[in-house]
């Protein structure tokens, strides 16, 4: 199935210059106006802040990705205090324009056609590592390997009457490739998205990113001018009807828990764009938020992510540049091993919502909890007119973020690897009840969890998960849903004993030998927050309310 070719992104190159100019003029106007109203945000302060933060960053080392050298910022720091206001505005305009140009992506229809027609075949060949004679057959298999579920028909309709903002969960750099493929496979239009500038140095992906509408986000730059350019670029694209993708977790989830704390900066641009569309009386002003969960049996960068998570005690270092994704042989190894399994990835689209977090029906009408239609323009009324209000709109976006987090939870697909990891980790917890997490992870390496400690828990967990799935609190992979518990456990064990440098476990005749407790914790974490802890422990075998 091929995506709609009348999507706005096919006109991107015709509009690119206008978009850059629009971003530049809006950001400059906004910063100048803010400086006029708030003395704390004077142009001198804003430019000095940028110079200070950039010099501090560049002192630690520069790279070819840097747009301006250390000396440029030094000059600004030296001169901006003495300069008159018109000079400051000129500097701001020059800087904003340069950033906007750097951020703006490209879209080459030829590359898109190539990517959507040839790449899946290439991926199949890569994933199966067989002769080219069988690639067509393998292509068919790819659609069995990536299973797309959920509200795709609904989204196809909404894409015709408004702008989609796809917001997926995020655990791997393969996510954007998987999303791109899944959108096309579902007949949904291509999306533009912000990708870390460091990813553009990866030879596998940079060519496609450069030409498929991805825009560059340099996460090392922390000053307010750059952040404003990024947000404004997103707003302008949405206002012009470019379907977009944001990872609301901000960065890959280190712990593998279903994301609940979402970064709302870019998501807020959906509401700003909708408001501006109404004020400017644009056709099809609506913006629809489309949650998507990406559910892997195995996560390519699992070892690096959980290592980082445990090192920072749940905190997040912003960028990891040297993980498994940067190593092509690792990607190949991951792909070929995981694709030999019957199922690998579930892409599940949740019900779409408006920027206020209300569900949206197939006609694009928002519905209240009793399915009554809502005139959402009225959320934006101030004295009977649509007006932006930053404090109010932030609160709306927080509510929308909560709705997205709830959707992630409901639409998470439990697969056999996660299932077994949760069972085994609970058994370990019970074996060492007095140990904190870090001690437990140290002593668990090489531990044998006997078969009898697994099966009773597995039966309880499968029954509970099926019950939760019936009540639409979670979704189940075909293995967890359909297999008998013994077969399910063996399937999970097979998956968890492959790919990773130190496999998660080794199946022994009398039990499961834990090879990598950190990774076991990583996969088990996917079921954290569902109230299953009591169920998995021996002492509370009737479980808590999920």
């Amino acid at each position: 199935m091929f995506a709609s070719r009348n999507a706005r992104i096919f006109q991107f190159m015709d509009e690119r210059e206008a978009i850059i100019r629009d971003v530049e003029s809006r950001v400059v106007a906004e910063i100048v106006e803010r400086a006029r109203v708030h003395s704390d945000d004077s142009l001198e302060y804003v430019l000095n802040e940028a110079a200070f933060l950039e010099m501090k960053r560049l002192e630690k080392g520069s790279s070819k990705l840097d747009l301006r050298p250390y000396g440029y910022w030094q000059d600004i720091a030296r001169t901006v205090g003495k300069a008159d206001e018109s000079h400051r505005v000129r500097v701001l305009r020059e800087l904003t324009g340069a950033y906007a140009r750097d951020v703006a992506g490209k879209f080459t229809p030829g590359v898109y056609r190539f990517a959507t027609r040839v790449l899946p075949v290439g991926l199949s060949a890569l994933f199966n590592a067989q002769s080219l004679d069988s690639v067509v057959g393998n292509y068919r298999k790819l659609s069995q390997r990536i299973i797309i579920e959920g509200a795709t028909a609904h989204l196809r309709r909404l894409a015709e009457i408004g702008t989609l903002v796809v917001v997926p969960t995020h655990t791997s750099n393969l996510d954007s490739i998987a999303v791109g493929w899944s959108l096309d496979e579902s007949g949904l239009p291509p999306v533009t998205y912000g990708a870390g500038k460091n990813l553009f140095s990866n030879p596998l992906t940079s060519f496609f990113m450069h030409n498929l509408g991805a825009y560059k986000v340099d996460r090392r730059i922390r000053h307010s001018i750059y952040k404003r350019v990024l947000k404004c670029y997103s707003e302008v694209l949405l206002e012009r009807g470019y379907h977009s993708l944001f990872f609301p977790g901000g960065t890959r989830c280190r712990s593998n828990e279903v994301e609940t704390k979402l970064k709302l900066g870019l998501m807020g641009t959906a509401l700003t764009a909708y408001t501006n569309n109404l004020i400017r009386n644009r056709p099809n002003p609506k913006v629809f938020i489309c949650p998507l969960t990406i559910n892997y049996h195995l996560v390519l960068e699992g070892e690096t992510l959980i290592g980082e998570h445990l090192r920072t005690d749940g905190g997040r270092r912003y960028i990891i540049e040297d993980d498994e994704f940067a190593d092509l042989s690792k990607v190949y190894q991951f792909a070929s091993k995981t694709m030999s399994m019957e199922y690998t990835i579930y892409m599940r689209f949740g019900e779409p919502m408006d920027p206020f977090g209300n569900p949206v029906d197939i006609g694009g009408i928002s519905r209240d909890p009793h399915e009554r239609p809502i005139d959402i323009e009225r959320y934006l009324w101030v004295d009977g007119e649509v007006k932006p209000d930053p404090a109010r709109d932030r609160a709306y976006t927080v509510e929308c973020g909560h709705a997205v987090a709830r959707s992630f939870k409901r639409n998470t697909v439990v697969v056999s690897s996660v299932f077994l990891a949760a069972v085994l980790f609970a058994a370990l917890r019970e074996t060492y009840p007095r140990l904190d997490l870090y001690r437990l992870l140290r002593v668990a390496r090489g531990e044998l969890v006997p078969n009898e400690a697994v099966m009773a828990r597995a039966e309880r967990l499968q029954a509970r998960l099926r019950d939760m799935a019936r009540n639409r609190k979670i979704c189940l992979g075909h293995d967890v849903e359909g297999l008998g518990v013994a077969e399910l456990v063996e399937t999970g064990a097979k998956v968890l004993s492959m790919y990773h440098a130190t496999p998660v476990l080794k199946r022994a005749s009398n039990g499961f030998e834990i090879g990598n407790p950190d990774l076991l914790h990583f996969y088990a974490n996917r079921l954290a927050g569902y109230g299953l802890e009591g169920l998995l422990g021996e002492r509370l075998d009737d479980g808590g309310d999920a």
Partner: protein
Amino acid sequence: MSGTRQSVGILGAGRWGLTLAQVAAQHGQSTYLWSEDSRRAGRLQSQRKLKSLLPELDELHAGVTATSDLALVASQCHTLVIACGAGETRAIARQVGAVVDGSHVVLHAVRGLEPGTLRRATRVIREETCARKVGALAGPALVEELLAGRPNAFVCASRYPEVIRRARQAFAGDAVRVYASKDLAGVELAAAASAVAAVGVGIALQLGLGSATLATFVTRSAAEMARVVEAAGGQAASAMGLAGLGELLALRESGSREVEAGRMLAAGKTPAQITKKLGHLDAVDAAKTFKALAEHYGVETHIGAVVADLLAGEVDAPTAIRSLMTLSHMAE
């Protein structure tokens, strides 16, 4: 249109609702007072008082229009304030859901959690309506003192600045201050808990305990509130603020119905006899729900649990006090 909506609507014509309507009208707000009971609405509109329910009110302000037409109220009011018992909130919110749009501000002045579900009133409102701009009005303000025009204070909690602004527009004046808070959960939970603690204070007063004991009782109640509020997602500071400690002190000083209920319990009256004399008390439901909430979050609440047991008729007052005094010693 929101632009032409100039009024405030008070939903619920009980003691609290009548008082809020009177205060809003006294502050120059065109005010609608909605009662589901059309006879009560009609009587209020024609006779301008309801002595059987609120003898302290001499005459309903001319700026108040009493009605049972909720659609009319929603069409005229930018702000709706639900003033009812915790157990009635969902039924009223469901009706509100049929008439509001996204521009409405929906506040509540409910002191309690929904019985059974333990849900805060703003969550109930969210589950029943499309309203986003919701908030809670709580604090030590008292019916008798508001009607007498004595200085009072509320706290209005909401994530939305407009909600705070509308609450101030409706109620703030020479004699009423409206403080702002962003801790919606904390304020709602603290308000629910303070009514329970007030029953405990009434018991202590009836038993003739000294000032030191009373002070201990009040501060330990506040500490308990803070623990539960924090465990349930609010900020402990809200329990020590107007909605928690502030309201508890006001209830204690005013000899409120909650304190009176505590006195009657200590005097050996049954919960049924108390309800018969004082009418429905939110504190009865609140005690049960607060105890359940504490258990849900694994927080120890000695005073709250004892009050809940007393109100449920499971222990008598002397036994309850003895059980509190024989607790093992603990850190403050």
